């Protein structure tokens, strides 16, 4: 197990360097950010040159990237163009988005797996068909449609929930946006679980377990569910990163000042320290989530760790 973990950790290094460099390249290719800082008017050349020198933007790209990475490893993510340290932006944005993601993941896991097990065990019956049709509808509706719709219905029309989230983003207010964010993944989790359960329900070891006279709930939780969860765990693991990065739409709709919002602002204003800094962290989140998934695999199915 130890060697497996080390090997996985070493694999993360080239991925980290490669992905951050690509992001750096892309933001750089968008052009000179200083031009946009002056709004619709032409920048004063002397001031612009001074700002460029300050931000290390007057150097060629091959010098900028090592310079930037060097700073990152010292914990310095630079200053966003509005004068705030990027680390300050991150600490506020990531804590909010993390909470939103957690709400989404919990909803996804609890509701998704429960629905999946429920319909998987009743394959082909009315309840199963209903769940399948519902998930199909959910998957085919884009997030911004469901977002605005639920916001309007629950927030403005019925006033059950606040239509927008307050600045400190209390957990209660994150339920609705969390649901919107989770909706599509939730449908996938349901379908994955359902298929997996339906398949394994006919497996030999389940028949054996039933034949041994084990109680039904034990058969389901210990034997059936444990083996059926592997594809679901993979999906949820990779989904953590995707949800954090993909919260742009949801955060905009519900006025949540999280990662998605900061990234969106950063890209709009071509604020390279913000964009690269946030994406770097997101890359790390992805990598760690993937690592955890792989390790969980090894726990769920001991055969994997010897591979």
């Amino acid at each position, binding site marked *: 197990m130890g060697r497996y973990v080390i090997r996985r950790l070493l694999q993360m290094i080239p991925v980290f360097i490669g992905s951050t460099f690509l992001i750096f390249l892309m933001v750089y290719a968008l052009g*000179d950010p200083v031009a946009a800082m002056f709004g619709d008017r032409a920048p004063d050349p002397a*001031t612009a040159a001074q700002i460029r020198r300050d931000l290390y933007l007057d150097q060629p790209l091959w010098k900028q990237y090592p310079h930037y990475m060097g700073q990152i490893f010292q914990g310095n993510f630079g200053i966003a163009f509005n004068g705030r340290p990027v680390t300050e932006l991150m600490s506020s944005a990531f804590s909010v988005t993390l909470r939103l993601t957690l709400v989404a993941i919990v909803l996804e896991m609890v509701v998704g797996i429960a629905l999946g097990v429920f319909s998987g065990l009743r394959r082909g019956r009315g309840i199963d068909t209903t769940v399948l049709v519902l998930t199909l509808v959910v998957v085919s509706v884009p997030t911004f449609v469901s977002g605005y719709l639920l916001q309007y219905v629950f927030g*403005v029309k019925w006033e059950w929930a*606040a239509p*927008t989230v307050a600045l400190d983003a209390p*957990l209660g207010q994150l339920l609705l946006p969390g649901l919107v964010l989770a909706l599509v993944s939730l449908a996938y989790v349901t379908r994955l679980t359902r298929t997996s359960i339906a398949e394994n329900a006919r497996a030999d070891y389940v028949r054996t377990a039933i034949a041994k006279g084990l109680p039904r709930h034990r058969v389901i939780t210990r034997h059936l569910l444990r083996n059926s969860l592997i594809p679901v765990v993979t999906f949820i693991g990779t989904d953590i990163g995707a949800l954090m990065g993909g919260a742009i739409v949801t955060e905009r709709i519900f006025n949540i000042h999280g990662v998605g919002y900061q990234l969106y602002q950063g890209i709009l204003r071509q604020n390279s320290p913000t964009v690269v800094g946030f994406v770097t962290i997101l890359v790390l989140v992805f990598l760690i989530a993937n690592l955890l998934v792989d390790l969980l695999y090894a726990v769920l199915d001991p055969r994997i760790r010897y591979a």
Partner: protein
Amino acid sequence: MRGAVRAKWAVCAGVLALVATACGGGTAGPGGSAVVSASWGDPQNPLEPANTNEVQGGKVLEMLFRGLKRYNPGTGAAENVLAEKIETTDAQHYTVTLKRGWTFSNGEKVTAKSFVDAWNYGALLDNKQKNAPFFQYIDGFDKVHPDSGSATAKTLSGLRVKDDHTFTVALNQKFSSWPDTLGYSAFMPLPQTFFRDHAGWLAKPIGNGPYLVDSYAKGSVLKMRKWTRYPGSDPAQNGGIDLRVYTDNETAYTDLQAGNLDLVDDIPASQLKNVRADLGDRYLNTPAGIIQTLTFPMYDPRWSKSGTAQVRRGLSMAIDRGQITKEIFQHTRTPATDWTSPVLGVKGGYKPGLCGEPCEFNPAKARQLIKDGGGIPGGRTTITYNADTGSHKDWVDAICNSINKTLGDDKACVGNPVGTFADFRNKISAKQLTGPFRAGWQMDYPLIQNFLQPLYYTGASSNDGKFSNPEFDKLVNQANAAPDTRQAVAKFQDAERVLAREMPAIPLWYQNGSAGYSERISNVRLNPFSVPVYNEITVG
């Protein structure tokens, strides 16, 4: 009270049901403090007077500061505030006398030094202030802010403090309407603490306006409260303003509808159709000092050779402004017939119809002019715009459609989207564009000079098309040297007629400011800069 609030939060956090999300976020707490909540966009730069060049930061400075002059929220006229008088005999050397009794909200007196220090700070290249060019008319600007290299002086030689309440300004050229530019936020005074503890000041700015900063959570909310000892004649009529940063103007509008927000000063384009039904009288749609144009790249030889002026006039006549402002903008724009803005008023230099025939829709004449001028250079043209904000695609496509229909050629004009605003600006400054591009000009101060000189004078700071015309330059110089406003305006309008002939930029439409507000507040209006006059808003 505090405990009660905390208990409410605890209940909210505890009950994990959708219903619980109804807690919190509201502004109309018990006790009904007269604080107005308003939507806000995260300002692009730190909040410093000489570093703020966009509307979001500008509206805060308008609440926190008062300068020598202020633009009347109704008429746009520059009126003395801190200035007792600004005197000159030659339109080039000015003596500024301050009123007594003004202080900053921390008690420090506002003196001549407060202004001179602030202006020197704003002009100095080392401080990288984005509004530095506003000090370019003051003697010595080339020393503190050279075009290249580093500054050779720390202070502007044209500024002299005479005593606590008097200072003199020497300009490097005649500029009779210079005093009227002093209402712009770059010219606000700064307290000594700004220079002593810059970081502390940025965290919680201190000014001399009707409001003071209560707390500032950057990127989320700026809470301002009425400064009760404000000495000016326009104190706040409400207890304070909470500016809340919204991720999106759609979201702000939703919050307004749900009763969580009092004031939205940017109605989303998609809601313009419903806004009358939603808000009735509480929807404002008033002219602002913003004009949209299509600017031609005059640096491109194909657009500057003889005959192309006719083509440019022809293109202008091929655009059906009336229909586009009605269909696409729902009357939040007005077809432009000159290069200024209605907010200047006729006295200030706005002259409807000055452009004349070239700005009227006339397909037959347009065809004729374009044909006589040798046709569109290259046979077809593109209109470049940035696609990331402002839904520019809609109207650019509509203009192209109008041109194509006029010319009977489906390919005569196509839109050319550029991904980001930054890239769009890059392409403009690098002179890479070969066809007309969108340009928007939001005035800095309500003067006709501000609509013409920065945009069309040879080598001027925002002359993106690199238009250069000796006759135009001469008329602008004469206008600036004119002894009184009336004569200056007449000269500027003569200069404008040069634009009508040469058409380096096609005037499209004047933009309105739009706002909506809740039933809780009243007395809301927009100033000529399309910013709400916050201090006049009353609650209840």
